[in-house]
């Protein structure tokens, strides 16, 4: 009779132990590290108060939020458009669908390298193509002027992750039953009305899920930017993750890095909670 009771615990024990070792312990350790400063590891809130006077951190945070907002908007609009387009019967539909998913399957590091080469102002494919079309590319230094560099990193994210948005929204579209559409047709509703009053409301859960996942990803973006611009020129494309990496592994200041990570965690959680609330509201209706 003993096994009846202990079995579930026995089965769960290894998982719990691994979880304890690999996530709970590091988290607690990170809290400790963030509350210690200096070589003598004195307990203080210095790492957190420093955030308020660190102009680098503040501008990295601003970049991250603007980056997330811009990329999210573009990805959602483009992904929705593509999903609507490829939801209809058309020739070579499966080919388009497959081709669209390619960027998403590439590791972000590879994406970074590919775009870094493509965006090179002198030897890159982008300016090469533009030049052959007769465009004056002299001032199009994609990763070298602060404004263009920011737009470039956003564009690369949009290029890579729109397919993901598209995929989820397409799945959402296909799950919508046909009946409401038939009814709408009978009632003579216009294409816009059908979209606005049938497709959009029924697609809302899918949209919220995609927003939730993308927001979490965007706020911690690292790889592509690290490869593409390494946060430059100057500080123009530095995000919080990059700055955290720098503080920890370049400057060896793990406490400050941990403190910044917590701030990012809190922000990500707060935004995610909003989405989750909206989703729950949606479901309970």
């Amino acid at each position, binding site marked *: 009779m003993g*096994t009846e009771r202990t079995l579930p615990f026995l089965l769960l024990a*290894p998982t719990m*132990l691994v979880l304890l070792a690999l996530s709970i312990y590091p988290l607690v350790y990170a809290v400790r590290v963030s509350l210690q400063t200096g070589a003598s590891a004195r307990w203080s809130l210095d790492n957190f108060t420093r955030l308020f006077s660190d102009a680098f951190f503040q501008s990295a945070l601003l970049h991250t939020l603007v980056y997330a907002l811009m990329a999210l908007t573009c990805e959602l609009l483009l992904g929705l458009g593509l999903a609507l387009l490829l939801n209809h019967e058309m020739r070579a539909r499966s080919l388009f669908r497959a081709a669209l998913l390619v960027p998403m399957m590439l590791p972000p590091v590879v994406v970074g390298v590919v775009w870094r080469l493509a965006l090179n*102002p002198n030897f890159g494919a982008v300016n090469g193509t533009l030049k052959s079309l007769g465009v004056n590319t002299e001032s199009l230094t994609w990763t070298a002027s602060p404004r263009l560099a920011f737009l470039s990193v956003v564009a690369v994210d949009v290029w890579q992750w729109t397919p993901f948005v598209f995929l989820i929204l397409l799945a959402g579209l296909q799950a919508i039953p046909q009946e409401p559409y038939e009814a709408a047709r009978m009632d003579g509703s216009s294409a816009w009305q059908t979209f606005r009053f049938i497709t959009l409301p029924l697609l809302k859960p899918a949209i919220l899920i995609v927003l939730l996942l993308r927001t979490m990803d965007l706020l911690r973006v690292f790889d592509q930017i690290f490869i593409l611009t*390494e946060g*430059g020129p*100057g500080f123009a494309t530095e995000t919080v993750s990059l700055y955290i990496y720098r503080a920890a592994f370049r400057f060896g200041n793990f406490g400050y890095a941990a403190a910044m990570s917590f701030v990012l965690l809190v922000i990500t959680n707060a935004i995610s909670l909003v989405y989750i609330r909206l989703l729950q509201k949606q479901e309970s209706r």
Partner: protein
Amino acid sequence: MKKQAARFTIRRFPIRTPKALYHLGMRKRPLSLKTLALALTSILFVSLLSTSCGQNQGDGKQLTLAVNAGVEGDALKQAARDYEAQTGVRINIVEFPYSNLFDKELVDLTAGTGAYDLIMLDDPWFPRFGGEGFLTDLTPLYQKKNLSGPDDDFVQTSLALCRHPYQTGTLYALPYLGNSQLFFYRKDIFEKHGLKEPATWDDVLGSARIITEREAQGAPGGGRLYGYVMRAAQGNAAVADFMPIFWAFGAEMFDAEGRPTVNSAEGISALRFMLELGKSAPPGYSSFNADEVSAHLLQGTAAMSINWPAWIAAFSDPAKSKVIGKIGFATMPGAKKPGQAEIGNWLIAIPRSARNPDAAFDFLVWVTSAEQLKRSALRGNPPTRRSVFNDPELVAKFPTYPVQLRSLETSRPRPRTPRWNEIENAFGIFLSKANSGELSPEEAMNQANAEILKIVERK
């Protein structure tokens, strides 16, 4: 009733073994899911434990070496193989790309894990590692061998890097690879326009302007040949390419009390000069890193640059270079002060937590001997000993060695501070901002100074 429902009922679902197994007579009765699950989880757990405990234990006959992945580390790896063959000591090589080497070593040193017996380190990291007492003092190890310390053949500027404090302090490392910046220029283009090898930064600017103007179709593909190319991407790149100008203009990063002085009149005029020079550089240079600069030189689209000797080999490689035999090498141009290159040596040190310091020291002395440094030189790494730089066989093979030695002996280290990585990062951001037009030279230097002050003053 409630209790009944909560009970674990997994036992009631036996797994059916595939029929084929019955026929093979391998199982007499169905395997219960319970047994299977328990078996699987325990296997998983045991294997996890065994992998995490599988670290090597030092036994005196084994050394672990952390090296930089790249040409510098390759020569050391080959030397380690030779050493194994000669002495029977086993050497494990752990290789990391440059961008990860510092953090891997820092983590090991701070935690004192003793994972490495020897570490290869870039000299700007040394004040941090040496200053925090992470490394083994080499002098007692020399004394065990009845020696007072390293011999006089080492280039003095290289050996000075291995002491903390700089030049005068405790010896914690030995120099393995003797890089210092060189000035590269296109001899053929200079001759064509009757220009002299630049001795001052004003010569450089004048020549750069002339070449950019006259060679509008001078590049191999018919594009413009730019007079000068530099790295102005934030961080290490911009700072390394700026320091020789900064020093030549008479500017200093810190005063005697250790307070930053980058926004001095000299500092600002040096940055202003850099921007002026940037007008003769390929567009977008403010985001250039080593790759872009080397591409421009190799493709023949830029005529002058500062760089490291590691690049010299590529210029005569037909697969990469369109400028074979056309590149001249010189020491740094001067201005108010004589030109000084930035030194960039690879050092080898023994962590304090090393498991086999004595065996590690034997290897360290062996690998930095004149004989071994010559072998390393033949594998493409500049040495750190004068006798090797002057070796006739090597000079015949590497005609730039005399210039390299002169540059190295007059070179200057980056400021010796444990927070150099952070300071360099901040300084580089503002240099890059000035080069991309975001800030004026005055604004950039004032903001850089304020930021560096914050870093220096932070406890």
